[in-house]
Structures are given as C-alpha cells and as structure tokens.
C-alpha cells in the first residue's frame, strides 16, 4: 500500500520515467504488469492455483519467464504469453513483481 501510493505520487509528479530506471516507477511497466494480475491476482497475489508473483526473486522470475518464452519450461499458457513480450519487458516485469510484497 505504501509503495503503491508512493508510486502514484511519483507518477503524478511525472518523475517516474525521468528520474529512475526502476521498473516499479515506470508507468509503462506498471501498465504491462496490470495485464499479468488479471490471472495472477491483484498486486501479484493469487487466490488459487495460478502462482503468485509478488515478492519472488527477480532472477527467478526472469529466468522462469525466459525459459517459458523459449518453450524450455512446461507450461499451459505461459509460453503463449511470454512470446508477446520482449526480453527487456520480461526483465522489467520480473523486477516489478519482485518488489511487491
């Protein structure tokens, strides 16, 4: 909650993309990440069998997504999803979700 509100201020102030390269401050990353939470739960916290993303290690998330993208990791729908995102975006998403509690 603190983070989200702080983020809102940073974005309101138009500072996000200028001052920081941090994924969580970047409105584009925040918008991209909002497509993930439809399935993975609000704030990246899932209510069921779909895995939660919030607070996972960045390196783990990034590696998992890149492997899914390449078809090297067994998935039901994630390979289809990951090929819709660039490797750079996948890195940003991994960082974004790693910073959520």
């Amino acid at each position, binding site marked *: *909650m603190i983070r989200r509100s702080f983020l809102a201020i940073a974005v309101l102030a138009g500072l996000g993309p200028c001052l920081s390269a941090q994924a969580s401050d970047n409105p584009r990353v925040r918008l*991209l990440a909002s*497509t993930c939470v439809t399935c993975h739960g*609000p704030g990246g916290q899932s209510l*069921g069998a779909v895995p939660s993303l919030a607070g996972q290690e960045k390196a783990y998330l990034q590696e998992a997504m890149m492997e899914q993208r390449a078809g090297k990791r067994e998935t039901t729908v994630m390979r289809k999803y990951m090929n*819709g995102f660039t490797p750079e975006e996948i890195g940003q998403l991994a960082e974004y979700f790693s910073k959520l509690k």
Partner: protein
Amino acid sequence: MSLNRRDFLKSSAATFAASIAPLAAHAKASQAQPHVVVVGAGFGGATCAKYLRMWDPNIKVTLIEPNEKFTSCPMSNWVIGGFQTFDALVKSYDNLPKYGIKMVKDWVTGVDGEKRLVMTKSGKKIAYDRLVLAPGMEWATESVQGWDEAYAAKKVVHSFRAGPDTLLLRKQLEAMPDGGVFLIASPPPPGRCVSGPYERASVAAHYFKQHKPKSKIIMLDGHFDVVSKGPMFKAAWKELYPGMIDHRPNNMVTAFNHKTMVVSSEFEDVKADVVNIIPWQRAPKLCKDAGVRNDALDRWCGIDNITYESTSVPNIHIVGDPVLSNMPKSAHVSNNQAKICAAAIIDLFNGRQPEPVPVIGSTSYSVTSDKTSGAIAVVMRYSPEKKVYERQPTGGANPLHSELDFAYGQSWHDNIWADTLG
C-alpha cells in the same frame, strides 16, 4: 488505516500535482480534480474505475450501475451444467467505494457529448470531464424471426448474460425428458464469448451423460467450424460424450416458432425440446444515442486504439464488448482494455502522451466437464504502423483439455473477480 494513509497521501499528491501544473499546460482549471463518469460496473467498467483511482487518486470517479450486485458471465455455464450454484456467480460491489469510487445505482438514459452530461432514469444530470462507456452489449433480436414472442413465452433463452436466464435454462434442462433434443444456436461473428456455446454444449452433455443419456445436443453454428479451442473441444467431446453432440457449422439460425418448437436456419428446420438461441449482438442503444455507435453496420463503436476514446465524440471512451476491433469480446479483454483506457485518461489529464504501444492479454478457460477444462491465451500488441492490434506468435489454444487447466481456470475466475471488484 489504509484509508487514512490514502487520504493523507491524496492531499500530498494534490500538492505535488499543483507543483507540476506547467507540465499539464492544456489541462483546464476545472480539472484540478477532474471527474470521470464510468457507465456499467462489469469487467470493463469496474476495472476502469478502480484503476483510475489506484493510479491517480486525484481523479474523482463516479461509477453508475443499475444492479445491486455483480453477476459473472464467466462460470455461468457451470450453473447450467449443474455443478455450481448461482450464488457463486454473484459478487458484491462493496469493495469499490474503498478506492474512493462513488457508486451510483441508476440507469443511464442518455449522454450529451457536447455539454458533457450524463442523464439517468432517476432524473439526475451528472457532469463529466471524461466519460467511460462500458455497458456491455444488447441483443439484436430481429436477427431471429419469432424471438421476441418466444422469449416472452419463456420458450427460448439466450443465457448469455448471467441472471434469471441462466437458472431458467438449467430448469428447462432438468425438466427435459431423457431422449430429448437440446438445441444451441450461436450467431456469426463478431459477438461476445465465442467459446461460450461450445462450453455450454459440453456442460449439458456432462449433465445428460449422468441423468438422461439418450438425449442429444444439436448445435446450429453461425461460424464455419468450432472456431474457438476447436481441436480441444472436438477431442473432449469424442472422449467424454461420443455421439451426443451434433455440431453443424455454417448454419445460421434465422427463425424460431415456439408453438411448434421448430428452429429454422438458412439450410434446415430442427425440432427441439429445449431451445437456446444466442442472437446477434451490438453496442447498446445508449452508445447509439451518444453518437459513438458509428461503424458502417451501426453495430459497434470505433475507438482510438491507444486511448479508447470514441472516433466520433471527444471525451467519451468505450471499453469492452461495444468496441469495434479484432479483439475477442471477453471478460479478460474488457478488463485489460479498461486498464489501458484508465492509464490513457490519467495521461491525458496530466498533459502526457499515453502509452503508444498498449498490450492486451486474453486468456479464457472453457470447461468440458466438472473436472476438466481447456485454455486459450493470446497476447495482442498495438502496432502504430499498421494501426491494429497484432496477435503475437505462439498464442492460441491448448489442443487438449486437462484437470490442471481446470484448476488454473478456477483460479482465473477468483483472480479476475478480485482484480475487477477489489
């Protein structure tokens, strides 16, 4: 606790916003706290209202919805199949006001795009800076001759907007004798939830197999094939319900005589015991009256693909089913469009360029029994060069249903409900 903190931060945010006023050069004085009115609290409207407030607490948001509670279309086929209660589809709107959204229970009767006013049934006139229309779709019942009389007589259902029709169809299937015929007719594209009728055939077959195994399901399909999750459905039907589902493609229904219970398509007449015809759909009359239902066939609403603002009336945005596009008309797409629209509105109020390459995800799960489901997932990215959302590689449906996809599908419902309603 969180509310207090939010309120405190809201005032801090307002201070910050004031300090960057020059950045928002063409934001008007009246937009010190701009007002967005959202019409319709479904997957599109409720999500848009919530994300507008989450991402910019400076925006005042009013959400107008006639229903006391939310009723989910996704999962409503489970009720028709007899393995879910109707109550499980019904969700409260109680969390939305916690985001600072003003909920108004009313029916919007008109929009004055020039004066930026929304008129309601109870006589309210609500002024907006920007309006988001998310009213779902309305039935073009004239596409099926005899529909209106048959519907009034409760001899035909659509059951494609979760509510009383969902339960009526369940009761009709329960009352149908063993050996009866259940007819499902789906309209030609575009329409809401293309896979819904195939899922419905599956859940009906699941019920018949246990309780009335001599019964048949005939699908008169306005599409050229089982167009969504086709291989998955066909394999599941062969495995679980051999010979029970008779799918007849390219077979658009044109008429229904409820006195004889004969359904007529372009090619044949079929007598049935229970009739489920899903008529053609279009953007609701409200969209037409507002001047935003503007395609050549007077069915859908043209939008700017980055802001979801109408191509004909400024300051009116449209999300969900009414949108003219190549995107599926689904809960997931409505939810994702709503976020892109919310982000764009925030950018526009703050004098910034909205995200030029929005990305839409679309996942849907269709059950094939009370234990199995099949998934489809597609990512669509907007191409500024081609001016269209393009499907990304490897997207599509899983070829087989599975118990794993059933578990993920169940979780998908819980998560999208929570994401939409708070």
